[in-house]
């Protein structure tokens, strides 16, 4: 167990190094950082000293491996440098935007589980009956419907037409308002994930329900509901937990889309905007943090797995 965690952490560090090198290299080679910092003024001879200043400030007078080394040194000390676009420290940008995305992702996960567990249990309890067939149909629809289309439709219906939810993200009117303005975006993220969870849970539950210990419990006179939620649910959660980690990737991708549609100034939208304006330090920092978090989460899932299923522990 300890050995497994240690190997995975070593793998994580090498992965982050590789991702940072590739991203750093390709962005610096293909773009023109000076132009991105100063704009058209780069070619203006009158601003020559400004150009020289920026060159020195952002280490652009050094060669690429040297620059990468300097950047990496700063990152190891917890400093991601300054944004090319406005000179603001990347750390403060990340510190401001990332918590919003985490809140969004957390809300979405909770919603997905809250929707998926009862739906999965009811579908499995009456497999191949009307409710089961209807949910199968709906879940396939949600898997095929791209996140952004779902988002725009929900936004139109509940924010524009019926005005139940605010049109954009409101942060400074108390916690309730904050959560309320996050509700639609979180739901957009949650529905497709809930669809996947529901399918998995249903399949696993149907298998579990055929096992002897379920029959045993039923014949002892335990009620149907108690058997479903008390006996069958826990051993049916394995594929569910595995996908939980993998789904984090979909969640990150979804956050990118949803934050753009619902005007939430979070990390996802920041990545898209930084890419469009070639703000490399911000992109690099966010990509590394997200990748690292994603890998750590999957590691956590594997650890959780052994806790849930004693058979894996050996």
């Amino acid at each position: 167990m300890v050995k497994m965690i240690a190997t995975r952490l070593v793998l994580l560090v090498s992965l982050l190094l590789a991702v940072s090198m590739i991203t750093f290299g390709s962005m610096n080679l293909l773009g023109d950082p000076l132009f991105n910092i100063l704009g058209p003024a780069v070619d203006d001879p009158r601003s020559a000293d400004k150009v020289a200043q920026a060159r020195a400030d952002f280490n652009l007078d050094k060669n690429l491996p040297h620059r990468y080394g300097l950047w990496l040194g700063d990152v190891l000390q917890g400093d991601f440098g300054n944004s090319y676009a406005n000179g603001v420290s990347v750390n403060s940008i990340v510190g401001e935007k990332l918590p919003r995305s985490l809140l969004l992702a957390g809300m979405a996960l909770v919603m997905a589980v809250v929707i998926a567990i009862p739906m999965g249990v009811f579908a499995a309890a009456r497999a191949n009956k009307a409710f089961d067939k209807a949910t199968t149909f709906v879940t396939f629809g949600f898997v095929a419907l791209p996140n952004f289309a779902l988002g725009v439709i929900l936004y139109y219906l509940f924010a524009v037409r019926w005005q139940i939810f605010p049109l954009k993200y409101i942060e400074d009117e108390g916690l309730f308002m904050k959560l309320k303005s996050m509700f639609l975006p979180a739901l957009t993220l949650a529905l497709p994930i809930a669809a996947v969870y529901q399918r998995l849970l249903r399949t696993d539950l149907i298998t579990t329900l055929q096992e002897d210990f379920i029959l045993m419990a039923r014949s002892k006179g335990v009620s149907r509901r108690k058997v479903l939620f008390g006996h069958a649910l826990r051993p049916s959660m394995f594929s569910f937990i595995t996908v939980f980690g993998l789904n984090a990737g979909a969640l990150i991708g979804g956050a990118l889309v949803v934050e753009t549609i619902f005007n939430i100034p979070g990390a996802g939208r920041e990545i898209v905007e930084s890419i469009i304006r070639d703000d490399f330090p911000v992109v690099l920092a966010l990509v590394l943090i997200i990748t690292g978090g994603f890998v750590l989460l999957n590691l956590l899932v594997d650890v959780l797995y052994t806790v849930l299923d004693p058979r894996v522990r050996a």
Partner: protein
Amino acid sequence: MTDVIEQPGEPLDPFESSEGDEIANTFWGDAWRILKRRKLFWLSAGLIVVFAMMAVVPGLFTAPSPAPQDPGGINCVLSNAEQSPSGEHWFGTDTQGCDYFVQVIHGAKVSMRVALGATLVTVIIGLLLGGVSGYVGGWIDNVITRLADGFFALPYLVGAIIVLSALAGGSRRSEWHVLTAIAFLGWPAVLRLFRSTVLQVKNLEYVQAARAMGASDRRIMMRHIFPNAIAPTLVYSTIGMGAVISIEATLSFLGIGLPLGTISWGIMLQEAQQEAIAGQSLHLLIFPTIFLVLASLAFVLLGEELREAFDPRLR
């Protein structure tokens, strides 16, 4: 990847046709016998044929060109902009007053091209590397699987963004770049799947028999292993095509995929989003969405049907 299909162990010729033969006992014959009785198979296959025709010969459905200046193109009247659907304009008109039905039909072209291209490249790379990795094993296998693991650690959309921004900035992007980015991130999944099925098949008795009779590695791989290990990859890539359609539209929608002005469902939806949020012209949003979902769903459903037909456990 929870339910990888198990392979039956018979050495079979995949090209041996068994159409109409009710006592077919080849793997592919059995699969076909199951498939042809299933309604959802015919529904999804039919939908795919319709979308493929839309992409290849849009003239069958509507005007042969969506551009007003082309011969056979359509008339755009600016004063007709953003009309709701009517008998004359089935899907209404867009912000330029152009017929929307024509554009939605022509949108199939890019979607299908990117989906087919990206899936083909993904599958070819995945099969080559997966085959080598599974059959040869050793340090080559180690290097290839480690590399694939690295790709899995990268969240998909973030990866696509890195690749796209590295390939080409802003307006220089084309559908080739989008295709490359999707394929670049897609192959590790195919590799994993094909490698694991090759590993299962390669130790079966009939492969040993072929080896004992002196068959070359190449012959064993092509004649004996490949035909019996390909089914799960076929299922995965069919479902994958549906996913690619959706991913391409998402990238275009975010403004980091296809360039603006391309006739594509993703771009249409990006433009329609502003209109819909202003509370007008909901039809601009609805029609591309329906087409997008149907196209994507058709491939996903076909894949699921193939999975059922290929999975011996369900027989």
